[in-house]
């Protein structure tokens, strides 16, 4: 029985808006890095835009999203305000973390982004705690935790899935399977045929979807969110995708066969969705162009804000280590 439920036209356009905002942000950050404005490694999510875009339209502002160093797509999709977001990447005092966290650790509690980790796998156990608190407090908050295919091989993944199952937590484990962990292909690091297959060992649903297909991704997220909100427990979603810009900026992807890369780039999900929206009659070219132009304008305003912002004062080193007034 195939699922034919379609997102509304508005939902589809919102997914597209978010996806193009991510693409815009990624392009612009790379320019800023090359211009020497951001002094940090950068882990581009290009190619993975539709996953968080299609998840986020199923979430409420109060829901939590946990992500990783490769996380700007997840943060933008969750609705992080652009100005302090860009300022954080630039290490400015006006950034979401006062410049202390940086590109690998962008968090914004007010947007439901309470933790972004640089430690592979570490987000999953923490997501359980967020979900547990929601369960205890009787809120209907859902926690989505994003991680890579490589992360599914670390102990934290396995411990967290089991605990979430036993405690029936309102948590959604989203494995963004981009086929590579640093320079290691999926098949060299992972024994299971699919990551979704692993769910059965923990007694939870495991769903494999094409993460580069907005509608499929939207349906999987919709079901997992409904299950979590209804108190029925966690879901593992494996969203198949690809990363176009290597592990981090400067990586020439020499370990990826040329044909594999070419095929993935030819199937770039963002232009593909654009063509599909027009082909299906959901939007006209000029409507989509207007969305894109609005993204560019909003983003440029944020970049201007960030570049004009001051760096944090050195005295900030002593602050936020422990509660104000307490001794570090």
């Amino acid at each position, binding site marked *: 029985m195939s699922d034919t439920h379609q997102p509304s036209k508005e939902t589809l356009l919102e997914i597209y808006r978010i996806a193009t905002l991510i693409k815009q942000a990624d392009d612009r950050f790379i320019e800023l890095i090359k211009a020497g404005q*951001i*002094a*940090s*490694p950068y882990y581009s999510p290009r190619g993975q835009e539709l996953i968080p875009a299609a998840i986020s339209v199923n979430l409420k502002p109060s829901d939590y999203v946990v992500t990783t160093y490769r996380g700007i797509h997840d943060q933008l999709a969750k609705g992080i305000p652009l100005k302090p977001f860009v300022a954080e990447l630039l*290490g*400015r*005092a006006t*950034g979401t*973390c*006062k*410049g*202390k*966290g*940086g*590109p*690998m*650790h962008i968090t914004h509690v007010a947007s439901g982004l309470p933790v972004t*980790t*640089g*430690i*592979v*796998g570490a987000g999953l156990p923490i997501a359980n705690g967020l979900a547990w608190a929601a369960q205890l407090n009787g809120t209907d908050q859902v926690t989505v935790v994003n991680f890579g295919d*490589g*992360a599914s*091989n*670390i*102990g*934290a993944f396995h411990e967290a899935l089991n605990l979430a199952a036993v405690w029936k937590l309102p948590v959604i484990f989203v494995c963004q399977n981009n086929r590579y*962990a*640093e*320079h*290691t292909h999926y098949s*060299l*690091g*992972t024994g299971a045929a699919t990551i979704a297959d692993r769910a059965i060992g923990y007694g939870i649903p495991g769903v494999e979807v094409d993460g580069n297909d907005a509608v499929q991704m939207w349906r999987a997220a919709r079901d997992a969110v409904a299950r979590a909100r209804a108190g029925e427990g966690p879901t593992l979603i494996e969203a198949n995708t690809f990363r176009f810009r290597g592990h981090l900026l400067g990586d020439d992807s*020499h*370990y990826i066969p040329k044909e594999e890369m070419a095929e993935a780039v030819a199937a770039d999900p963002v232009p593909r969705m654009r063509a599909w929206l027009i082909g299906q009659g959901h939007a006209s070219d000029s409507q989509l162009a207007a969305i894109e132009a609005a993204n560019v304008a909003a983003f440029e305003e944020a970049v201007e804000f960030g570049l004009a912002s001051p*760096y*944090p004062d*050195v005295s*900030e*080193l*002593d602050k936020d*280590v422990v509660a104000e007034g307490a001794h*570090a």
Partner: protein
Amino acid sequence: MSTTAQKKINTAQAINFALHDAMELDRSVVVLGEDIADDQGGGVFKCTAGLSAKYGTGRVKSTPIAEQAIVGAAVGGALAGLRPVAEIMLMNFTTVAMDQIVNHAAKLRFMTGGQTHVPLVIRTTTGAGFGTGGQHADYLEAWFAHTAGLKVVAPATPADAYGLLLSCIFDDDPCIFIENLPLYFQPGDAPVRGERIPLGKAKVVQEGSDITLVSYSRTLHEVVAAAKGLAKEGISAEVIDLRSIAPLDFDTVRASAAKTGRVVVAHEAQVDFGVGAEIAARLHKDLFGTLKAPVARVGAARSPVPFSKPLETAFVPTRERILAAIRETLD
């Protein structure tokens, strides 16, 4: 001196040479870690380049991202007679394997009454300065040095990296071998191939009479630069590179301190509860009446490594901060 000693190489190459030479010498030497085989690029920093091509993927294993499994396999391999060299990509990721390191590698010799021992090396790297923020640049040597059963080694030059790594590999106890990211690319004198540098022996980098400066790893280079500046002012500093943190060559430090009466210890790890505290305590015990000034310590701020550039710069023990501590100690 052999001609190879005149050549310059960097620390990444020195480590690569040591691994090649150890594997060539002894079939029980095996290497494992994330992305270390040649198909994955021979290590993120190329320290393991060429090993899998030469010695095969049986002895040189790329692993999944699973630090606990990596160190656990190294412990097991070591118990069964191998000499595993595990690469943990960055020092912060050793935290994921702390049970294997602290509860097992460090303690099994003792807990089995000497029936077993664990001759493994954990090579790892760290260091602030690249804008990686709070989870990728910590110096955690004091944690390991605080654990009985572990040796902790932190070279500052390519030649030392080579000779000390060979010693660690052929040592019969577990060694934590701390490399430094920025130093990977800094050239220095090439080592004499095959020559090991004993663990637990500090190096007097420069002799002097007015003050003793103790350091290791990257901070040593800041200390040497500071000492050069002092020399222009007629101040004669003795610079000691610890090389090994545990075992600590306290004899060398004490002898120098007895001579100069003034000591500054500088390291990139935060000051509080650090290696400097251990040295200061021992010096104050042995030379309480002789010291002309309290032992001074310079290190990172007591905060996580910050991202923003001005904060990151202020976080690490800069030459200026080292000089300020020296001047205060000389006053």
